[in-house]
């Protein structure tokens, strides 16, 4: 009531002097606007170091075990807490509004918690929408490549290894250039990349230098649907099979198509990829489809995946090479993501791999028995419980 009494005379005077007030208001408004602009300019100038620097991290702790020792997804019959457990820290420093330095350090249980820099780059965005980056970057071959280790940002316990283990390296040193086309209700991003990398994996017997890594990808998203196409290639030099097979300047080419859908309730993700390598190393084709449905904090999901080599005929006359490189596998997963508390998701997953044909199925400990003429295992079941957190 008090307010109304006060407002009444004001309202009357406003009504009585419309022209005068309108003029007054616009100049007042202008002054207020200018004041605001000065304020925001001052604010951005005095923006403190803490506002320019961001620190984020993620942790995954996983329990993995299998019904046999075939080595599917790195699992064994005894409970393993290190294979899929990892920790990452990322610092982002905004040098200016357009230039950013990013460093991400990773520690993986499967790599004895050794500290590695997964990302370490400088990025610059030009006014015309072009963004360039240089340093150590992720090879953008898969839909989840950029956040491969951030389990919290993924619907499943792990990206299907049928597709994701076909390329033995996940980062490179070099640069990329990207451009975002802002369409009416969607964004199309074109990215080209180039650089070099290497693979030194004693467990898998890989020792490779990767030169002339290059590729291009295009992705389109309206934030519900996402479609993606990628082509990449590299030159390989070194050896595989713990030095038994020498690789001398062979070219490897990768193609991939991917799509995803997320309307808030339904989730669908699918990827199809091929790898073609000159020489004896295997060419392969793989794909998966994941479907999930959110029920409040629970998201049950199911995945079907396959993997097969596509150049068996090149090795069929040399049995040892065929035993070593031919691969065939189907995998079926059932899982549940539970968004238990803020920033923490718990995932339960059972994955069954089978249909290896006359191959080891890509399982590292599935050895050929010359006496029986068969491989030791013809299937494998892997159980996973995983905690994924971000901070």
């Amino acid at each position, binding site marked *: 009531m008090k307010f109304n009494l006060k407002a009444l005379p004001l309202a009357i005077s406003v009504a009585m002097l419309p022209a005068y007030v309108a003029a007054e208001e616009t100049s007042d*408004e202008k002054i207020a*606007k200018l004041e*605001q*602009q000065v*304020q*925001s300019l001052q604010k951005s100038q005095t923006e403190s170091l803490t506002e320019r620097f*961001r620190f*984020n991290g*993620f942790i995954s702790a996983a329990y993995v075990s299998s019904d046999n020792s075939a080595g599917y997804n790195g699992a064994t019959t005894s409970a393993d807490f290190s294979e899929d457990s990892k920790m*990452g820290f*990322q610092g*982002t420093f905004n040098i200016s509004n357009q230039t*950013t330095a*990013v460093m*991400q350090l990773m520690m993986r249980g499967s790599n004895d918690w050794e500290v590695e820099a997964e*990302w370490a*780059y400088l*990025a610059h965005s030009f006014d015309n929408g072009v963004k360039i*980056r240089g340093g150590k970057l*992720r090879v953008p071959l898969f839909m989840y490549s*950029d*956040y491969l280790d*951030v389990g*919290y*940002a993924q619907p499943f316990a792990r990206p299907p290894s049928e597709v994701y283990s076909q390329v033995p390296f996940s980062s490179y040193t070099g640069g990329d250039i990207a451009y975002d086309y*802002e369409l*009416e*209700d969607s*964004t199309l991003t074109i990215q080209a990349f180039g650089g070099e990398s290497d693979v030194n994996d004693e467990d898998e017997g890989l020792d490779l230098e990767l030169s002339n890594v290059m590729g291009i990808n295009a992705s389109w998203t309206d*934030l*519900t649907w996402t479609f993606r196409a990628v082509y990449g290639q590299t030159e390989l030099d070194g050896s595989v099979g713990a030095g038994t097979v020498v690789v001398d300047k062979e070219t490897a080419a990768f193609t991939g198509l991917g799509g995803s859908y*997320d*309307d*808030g309730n339904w989730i669908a993700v699918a990827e199809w990829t091929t790898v073609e390598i000159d020489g004896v190393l295997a060419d392969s084709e793989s794909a998966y489809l994941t479907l999930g449905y*959110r029920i409040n*904090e629970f998201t049950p999901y199911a995945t079907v995946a396959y993997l097969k080599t596509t150049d068996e005929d090149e090795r069929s006359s040399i049995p040892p090479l065929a035993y070593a490189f031919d691969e065939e596998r189907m995998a079926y997963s059932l899982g549940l993501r539970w*968004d238990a508390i*803020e*920033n923490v*998701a718990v995932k339960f997953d059972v994955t069954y791999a089978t249909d290896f044909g006359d191959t080891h199925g890509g399982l590292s400990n599935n050895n050929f028995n010359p006496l029986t003429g068969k491989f030791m295992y013809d299937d494998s079941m892997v159980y996973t419980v995983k905690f994924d957190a*971000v901070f």
Partner: protein
Amino acid sequence: MKKVLSILALSVCSIMSAQAAVVVIGAPGAADISASDAKKLFLGKGSKSAVVYELNEGNATRSEFHSSVTGKSDSQLKAFWSKQVFTGKGNPPATVSNAAAMKSAVASNPNAIGYIDEADVDASVRVILKP
């Protein structure tokens, strides 16, 4: 009995209308925006000059806003931003703790955009979208 029922019905109606919706606000001189522009801005896409403000995590108005504008639940939004952050693609918007702080943040910058409960709207800001 009929009277009682109609009073009941009326009061239910008034309770429903009193439950004000979330509205998107800008500075007093800001122009209207479309729902799809709002979705883009609050997911870090679109105009680079825009200054976006969010209410703190756990705020009911925030959850209501996102369920109607970006279609994301709290945990989906968290997963979305962790994806952006760890790929270096962007950072979540700055947050403010309540409607009053939101209004003063938005009112002081012509490029600012935020959201509040419709009941909290006053002359310091302009409603630029009713989702």
